[in-house]
């Protein structure tokens, strides 16, 4: 027929579809909700999965080995690379010196932890650490001497720190610990956002961490994040007989592939420390999380399949009830093609709206989650990233429409208009 009957307008395929969908408000709404929930489940999962993998991989990139106190190797990686778990303990500074002298080691970066500010960890390290994560300075300069601090982008924003400010760390890695008021830090620099763990850290020379705890005596207040370098602390026996200085862990880069075969074994058997491979532990972590993610993903797929089926059934039903109307349209002069377009537009309208609503729901939900939950913020979730799965889901929505529309369209195409109208 003429283009006029096909394109837009109140009674074109689009307008007619809207009229019919409005007529079946309840069924249409429920159907949209079902589809949107399924899509939101999958999209949300894909978003979290994508960002978590990216985040986990970025943080560990380039670190071949982590040396720290004996304990769970996964805990060692989590605490010293991801800054997510409590440390396993401390190792003597001599371990760092030994590693630095070792020809198999290209670089050894110390990290010393134990205090925090506003829930952000204060990490004693060297300038190698921010350099490793390619953290650039947004303002000021890098820390140089004890009690100078260069803070990550998130820390600066959330604790409202500026260059020149001073602050006191609190003991322990969670807020609420005893405040080290005598030994305040001075902010000398603020880092640009990196999308890595560095954003959420306060960086300072290792000496600062020692200095803070030299002023203090033995507060074994129940935190097992003991990093403390108290000379007179008798409980540091786990790391040997009162070593002069300690660090929490050492991040190691190999000088040659040969190191992978020799260094971990040598450290684990010949020293009191343990060596853990981030790559190995990351795989272990992902396989632990993976089972859960897979189950969740399966549920999401099930939801989408269910809602796709629901859309299919609803659309087939609606069009079945409408076979008289479609036949009437034919009798009023509409071609078979016009009827098929009508059905296709209606299917696309339902599944397209459902899919887009689902994507909005997923991203909005994660935005809300990130807003309400500090954990999600720690994780650095950014809800406004479009992940490839989003596009896949849009494709899926169109596919659902195509499948759901196909049967009714074929039926309508083949309908014996005369018989349908006569049977009425």
């Amino acid at each position, binding site marked *: *027929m003429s283009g006029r009957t096909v394109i837009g307008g109140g*009674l074109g395929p689009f307008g007619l579809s809207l009229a019919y969908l409005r007529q079946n408000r309840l069924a249409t709404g429920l159907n949209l909700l079902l589809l949107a929930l399924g899509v939101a489940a999958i999209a949300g999962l894909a978003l979290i999965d994508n960002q978590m993998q990216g985040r986990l991989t970025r943080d560990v990139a380039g670190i071949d080995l982590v040396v720290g106190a004996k304990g769970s190797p996964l805990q060692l990686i989590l605490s010293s690379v991801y800054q997510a778990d409590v440390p396993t303990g401390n190792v003597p500074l001599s371990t760092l010196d030994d590693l630095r002298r070792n020809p198999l080691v290209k670089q050894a970066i110390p990290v010393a932890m134990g205090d925090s500010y506003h829930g952000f960890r204060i990490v004693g390290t060297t300038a190698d650490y921010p350099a490793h994560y390619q953290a650039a300075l947004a303002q000021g300069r890098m820390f140089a001497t004890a009690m100078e601090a260069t803070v990550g982008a998130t820390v600066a924003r959330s604790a409202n720190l500026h260059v020149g400010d001073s602050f006191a760390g609190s003991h322990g890695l969670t807020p609420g610990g005893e405040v080290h008021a005598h030994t305040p830090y001075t902010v000398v620099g603020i880092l640009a956002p990196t999308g890595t763990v560095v954003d959420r850290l306060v960086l300072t020379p290792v000496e600062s961490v020692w200095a803070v705890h030299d002023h203090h005596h033995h507060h074994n207040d129940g935190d097992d994040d003991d990093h403390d370098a108290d000379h007179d602390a008798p409980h540091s026996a786990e790391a040997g007989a009162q070593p002069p200085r300690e660090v929490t862990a050492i991040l190691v880069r190999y000088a040659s592939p040969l190191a992978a075969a020799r260094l971990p074994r040598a450290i684990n058997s010949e020293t009191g420390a343990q060596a853990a491979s981030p790559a190995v532990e990351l795989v272990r972590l992902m396989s632990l999380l993976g089972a859960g993610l897979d189950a969740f993903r399966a549920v999401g797929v099930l939801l989408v399949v269910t809602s796709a089926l629901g859309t299919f059934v609803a659309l087939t039903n609606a069009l079945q009830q409408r076979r008289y109307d479609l036949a009437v349209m034919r009798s*009023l*002069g509409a*071609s078979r093609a016009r009827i098929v377009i009508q059905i296709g537009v209606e299917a696309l309208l339902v599944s397209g709206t459902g899919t887009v609503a689902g994507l909005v729901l997923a991203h909005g939900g994660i935005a809300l989650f990130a807003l309400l939950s500090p954990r999600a913020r720690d994780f650095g979730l950014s809800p406004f990233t479009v992940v490839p799965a989003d596009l896949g889901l849009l494709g899926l929505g169109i596919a659902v429409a195509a499948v759901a529309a196909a049967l009714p369209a074929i039926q309508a195409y083949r309908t014996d208009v*005369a018989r349908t*109208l*006569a049977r009425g």
Partner: protein
Amino acid sequence: MSPPSPLIHLRALRHRVAGRLVLDLPDWRVEDGEHGLLLGPSGSGKTTLLQIIAGLLSPTSGQVIVAGQDMTSLSEGVRDTVRGACVGLVFQQLHLVNALTLADNLRLAQRLAGYPLDDDRVAHLLARIGLASRAEARPQQLSQGERQRLAIARAVVNRPALVLADEPTSALDDGNCQRLLDLMLEQAAENGATLLIATHDARLKARLPARLTLAASVLEVVA
């Protein structure tokens, strides 16, 4: 000059459904400007014949000429177009579109036939059938008589040359029956259309010319 051609001309029309002969008609014509009545009991093939004339159904054999066009020689797509432009249909079950307002039901007929929307025409017809104030109502909110009138308005909205109506009065009481027939005849006259009504309603026989009883004898052939 040739004599005026008939608006409907059926030639040796036969139709079978699943091998069973349901229509076998002699030559039959309705002249332009005249009205016809198809009479016969239920199941005698009246609806089938209307559908064949409307081009919704192809007969097994014979010719159906409507407004000079041999419907049996046209493709389905062209028949759709011809029907949209030249034929108005009033179905026994009305088949109004409940998702649309009364006004949109009429506009849909304009649109699907490929005519430009003509809101004046829609308003005029709604006023004529006494439903002007309810243009935005839905068909299911109407009484049976009102729905019947809307169906007639939809059939004539595009000013077709031929209006086919299938048992338009069977559900109506005598008063409504007469008013509806008045409306149909008036609209036919206003638009210069030919009416062809299939019915077993004896009340209509009194109002339409006798020559249309031909249908009764035709249908006897079927029986």
